[in-house]
């Protein structure tokens, strides 16, 4: 291994601003999360949702009762929330934890980007994956129906809006949650288990409590119930939950944001320890 003569006389190199540096981190994070597991689950989501929506809508329109609420079918099965949870975990559990584990986080922090740029890039990647899994399938289904001429333009359009609204809120909340849990540890395993454990136990626990005590405000504590009530409202379906969809939506967005800020605060406390 001989040393090549130092042709290292680099021309002066122009630099791009913070925005493009952040985009570089986003691009890398987005691509490196496209593992087999994630792609498999996302593909599953596309196939399942498209089949359900197209089948139901076709059947309903034949019987002349096609309306926006027909498109709400996929949200009835618990699978929908599980898909979002798995994709958020696959894309988010390791996003910061792996950088802390490999200590490559020092390479980011010693470069000309703020901690906020680093985190927003990570958030961008997680959010995008969730949107791909949550909004994409619905839009594809509506597209197919429109192409087949099933359902009027207004129905398809408002159904599409429904999928987008629900997907965006899911992305806002689960991105914040994934970032917060991922920046707490240097092992993706613990962040992943915490994601599943928290969301599922909140969902079940809240159901039991409100079932017995009858007080429904506790329902807001479960992100899954909030999302479901938003979905119902978006598709004009009278749902089983007495919660107000607007406050559910606000809660999801606000709590998601707070969790992201918590991730920022937590990481800025972890002083890059010296000796």
């Amino acid at each position, binding site marked *: 291994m001989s040393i090549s003569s130092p042709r290292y006389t680099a021309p002066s190199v122009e630099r791009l601003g913070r925005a493009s540096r952040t985009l570089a981190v986003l691009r890398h994070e987005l691509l490196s999360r496209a593992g087999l*597991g994630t792609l498999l689950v996302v593909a599953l989501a596309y196939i399942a949702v498209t089949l359900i929506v197209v089948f139901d809508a076709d059947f309903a329109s034949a019987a002349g009762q096609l309306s926006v609420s027909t498109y709400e079918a996929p949200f009835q099965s618990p*699978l929908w929330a*599980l898909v979002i949870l*798995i994709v958020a*975990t696959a894309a988010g559990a390791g996003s910061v934890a792996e950088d802390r584990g490999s200590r490559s986080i020092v390479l980011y922090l010693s470069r000309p980007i703020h901690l906020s740029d680093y985190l927003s890039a990570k958030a961008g990647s997680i959010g995008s994956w969730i949107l791909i899994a949550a909004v994409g399938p619905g839009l594809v289904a509506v597209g197919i129906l429109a192409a087949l001429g099933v359902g009027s333009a207004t129905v398809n359009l408002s159904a599409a809006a429904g999928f987008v609204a629900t997907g965006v809120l899911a992305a806002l909340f689960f991105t914040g949650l994934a970032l917060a849990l991922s920046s*707490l*540890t240097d*092992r*993706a*395993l*613990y962040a*992943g*288990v*915490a994601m*599943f*454990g928290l969301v*599922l*136990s909140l969902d*079940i*626990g809240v159901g*039991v*409590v409100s*079932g*017995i*005590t*009858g*007080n429904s405000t*506790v329902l807001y504590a479960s992100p899954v119930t909030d999302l479901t009530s938003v979905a119902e409202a978006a598709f004009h379906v009278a749902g089983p939950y007495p919660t107000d969809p607007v406050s559910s939506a606000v809660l999801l967005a606000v709590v998601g944001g707070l969790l992201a800020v918590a991730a920022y605060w937590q990481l800025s406390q972890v002083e890059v320890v010296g000796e």
Partner: protein
Amino acid sequence: MSGELNRLLALIWLSFRGSLRGSRAVGLTGFALVPSLIVAAIASGHPAAASLSSTAENLFALLTLPIVVMVILLVLSVGQFRNEIDAETLVYLSDRSVARPTIVVGKYLGSLGAALGLVIPATLIPLAVATLAGGTPYPIGVPATMTAVAVLAAAAYGGFFLFLGLVSRSALLIGLLFGFLWEELLPLLPGDVPRFTVIFYLRSLLSWELSTGPLSHFSTVVSFGASVAAPLGLGVASVVLGGIVLRYLETAPEREAG
């Protein structure tokens, strides 16, 4: 043989202390308290005594067993070998005169002890909270069965996740998918499919004692013996298989250090 027993006790003590420490212990303890907090929340709504105690009872099959126990065992057992192999610290155990299967048994029992330290309170405290808050007291059979089922669950999942961590680099993904998809969805399917999940046998054991609540519709076609043998069998088989695997496993990284 006494030498090997000493070595086993030392390994158990090492794994037990190594499992419950630092932020992991705090996180899991918080998690183990979730069922009790939920019962407390219910109690604050002053429901009827009977419904308070029956809800606390049902909470075990609905939440504690499938989610809380699962999380505790996933965190404590998958990492037992996976963390050590990744961090290359297993060599400090495997280059000693202790037999390799003893290492597996030691780590299993050590991590199981730590897990039970969280699982049993997570099972019993909710019942205590319900009773203290005025719920009708439980016949001894209820807490006894629940504790037995919780221990059995820990033994089964603990062994399986330990084995997963030993043999696979992506033990996390497999453990998560098994714990929260396989064990959650298969029981919903018709026919014999649910028999392939551990939780089916755990729930059938529970239904011998608790016929109300979520288990009321449960058709107990499985014998008492089978519903104990299956989970226990999974745990024991995983440990035995793990012992054999570690006996022939190369425990050093597959690369030259230089």
